[in-house]
């Protein structure tokens, strides 16, 4: 049994009277790719927001490498090694492509304002390292992000490349656990296929443990070691893709019950 990286233990979150996530248990093992699926409003993105500290759970515990993340600020959780992308792209659009990635190195670097103002040798060395590191992160995407000049503003990127840049930025915080929120949303079949491949490479070459929300079942089938299905904030199925895809509760959640369908 592989080492557990992330443990979500009995987590609940209510918005007013609405239980968005209810008593959820998910484990993610080291080096695993786990997909979270479920209809819209099932609580998938909320789960990500809980893990990254944007929301605080009403009950339960979220544990990363044996230490609880509950109560930490999002940036502290990022420094613990959790990074994410957003379903609705949240790039720093008016900054250059490479600066987007460089900015995310904030947590791993140290030069203070005073040293920056004086541009001390140590600060300049660190700055070179950040740039080098950011170029490596971008180079991971091969030719796709190579076509651009990296000093162009991020808004000049096409939609698919914005998604890629977001992943590059997420990896620049030096995470161990990567949360990808619908990485293939809005992409054409070729690009979707590429993203699926990329996620595999992120695990194999980058060594990240990956939790991914995805609607495209081909992607989910291709990449997942395990699939977790949510509906109304409750885990309704867990297992390999085939197990989950044939699970009657999952089919019910996506397609409705037979009674409802025949009505």
């Amino acid at each position, binding site marked *: 049994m592989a080492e557990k990286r992330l443990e979500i233990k009995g987590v609940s979150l209510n918005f007013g009277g609405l239980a968005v996530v209810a008593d959820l248990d998910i484990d993610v093992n080291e080096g695993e790719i786990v997909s979270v699926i479920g209809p819209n409003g099932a609580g998938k993105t909320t789960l990500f927001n809980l893990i*990254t500290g*944007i929301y605080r759970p009403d009950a339960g515990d979220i544990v990363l490498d044996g230490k609880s993340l509950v109560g930490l*600020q*999002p*940036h502290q959780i*990022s*420094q613990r090694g959790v*990074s*994410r992308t*957003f379903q609705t792209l*949240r*790039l*720093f*659009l*008016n*900054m250059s492509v490479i*600066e987007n990635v*460089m*900015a*995310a*190195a*904030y*947590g*791993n*670097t140290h*030069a*203070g*304002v005073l040293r*920056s*103002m*004086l*541009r001390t040798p140590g*600060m300049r060395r*660190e*700055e070179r390292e*950040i740039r080098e590191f950011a170029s490596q992160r971008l180079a991971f995407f091969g030719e*796709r992000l190579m*076509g*651009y*000049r990296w000093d*162009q*503003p991020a*808004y*000049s*990127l*096409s939609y*698919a*490349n914005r998604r890629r840049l977001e992943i590059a*930025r*997420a990896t*620049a*915080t030096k995470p161990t656990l990567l949360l990808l929120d619908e990485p293939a949303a809005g992409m054409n079949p070729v690009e979707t296929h590429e993203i699926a491949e990329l996620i595999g490479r992120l695990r194999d070459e980058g060594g990240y443990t990956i939790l991914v929300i995805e609607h495209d079942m081909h992607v989910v089938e291709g990449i997942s070691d395990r699939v977790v299905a949510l509906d109304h904030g409750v885990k309704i199925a867990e297992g390999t893709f085939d197990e989950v895809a044939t699970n009657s509760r999952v089919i019910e959640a996506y397609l409705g019950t037979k009674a409802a369908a025949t009505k």
Partner: protein
Amino acid sequence: MTDSTPHSSETPASGPAVGQDEWVARHAERRLIRGGPLAPMEERLRAVPWWVWLTLFVGVMCLLPAVTASGYVRRVGFDTVLYMMLALGLNVVVGWGGLLDLGYVAFYGLGAYSYALLDSDQFHVHLPAYVAIPVVVVIGAIAGFLLGLPSRRLHGDYLAIVTLFFLQLFQTIATNGDSIFGHNVTGGAFGIFTVKPLHAFGHNLVVQHQGVFAVSYYFVALGFFALIYVALRFVNLSRTGRAWRSLREDPLAAEAMGMPVNALKLMSFAFGAAIAALTGTIFASLSASVLPLTFYFVLLITIYTMVILGGSGSMRGVVLGALVIGPLLELLRDPNKSRIIFYVALIGGLVFAFRRSRRLGIVVAATLAFGFACRAIAGALHHSWIAGSADGGLQHVVSYWLIIPKHLAGWIPPVSYVGVICVALVLTLVHGRLRLVLLPPTLYLAAFVWDNVMLTQPDPARYIVLGLILIALMIIRPNGLLGERRVEIV
């Protein structure tokens, strides 16, 4: 699409098919590099490093005292340098941090008052400059930090209101500070008027030399400006600067990417406040007095105009903004120069609006004809209607066209003023030929109001000009003169 044809012809038709990404990349790159005969020159100018530009700029600014011996002009130059420093400081908070700080000038005032207390007869404290200036800068930074503490969870309009309250609070304390628990601290509404000039090692930096503004302060201010510019540029290109800009772009994403957003906001506030306080020191030491009302809305609006005009977020931009607005506000004090500016702006605006179309000629000709006709009618009614021109120069020329009454009846200013606003509003509602017909009378009425009403009251007129500049800017270049193209985050 037509203007991209010469570029696309460069790529061989037999080459590989251009994918969408590549096309976008090439298109963006083409946009960055301008074509035409000026392109090689522009490319070469781009290659000049920033510090060469800065040295050149400061060098040229240093030449000002050599060009003119007028104490007035030198003082305007000095004020402009202070404006440039203030604009740079505000740019940290607004342009990089993305925090709408309407209390900014309070820090400027705080710096001025702090220096006044540290080097005046108020409490008979006389600290040398090398002690007083760092102390004031630290006070400014701490004040910025403290204002940031309750405001760090606010953004947008909420933050604006809280900071605006802070400005009002500063005003109230400064104005009523002549009896704080029975002690006269700030001198109340009359301020402190025994502030000593900057001094160090037994030497005073004189404020006036034989009754004329001493140019040494100009150089001191320029020196500090260069220092601030270099320091801010270095910070902007460091991890802190990137984090500030990330915070402006998307606070949630910045936080999720490991940047402590709250701490960064506080730092940005403190930075801007420290720069404002430093500027306040130089201002107070030169003016020899500090008054509460110096640090109020008018100044706030002026500095915001500079930052917005130049391009919030761009250091070169905000300096340019200060360089344009500072002297412009001074020029508008003088009716004759004000008049020249008005007509230049009017003609410039018309050319911009109509380009080189036939309609431009029609509008100009119609306006001229309309003016001559109106003047002839007015002159025929009574001679005194057109006998008002007293100044020489441009007014004399204009008076052949414009009605300039000798005595302005009491009802004319308000009626014509409201009239020009109403006609301008109607103009925005109508389209096509009707607009073209209405335009000449509107222009004529505007010229009438400007010459007869506004020029007699330069002060409101100056700020109306500021407002018009901002409106024009919003239409023509919403990102400011040197601002980068901006996209709004939805």
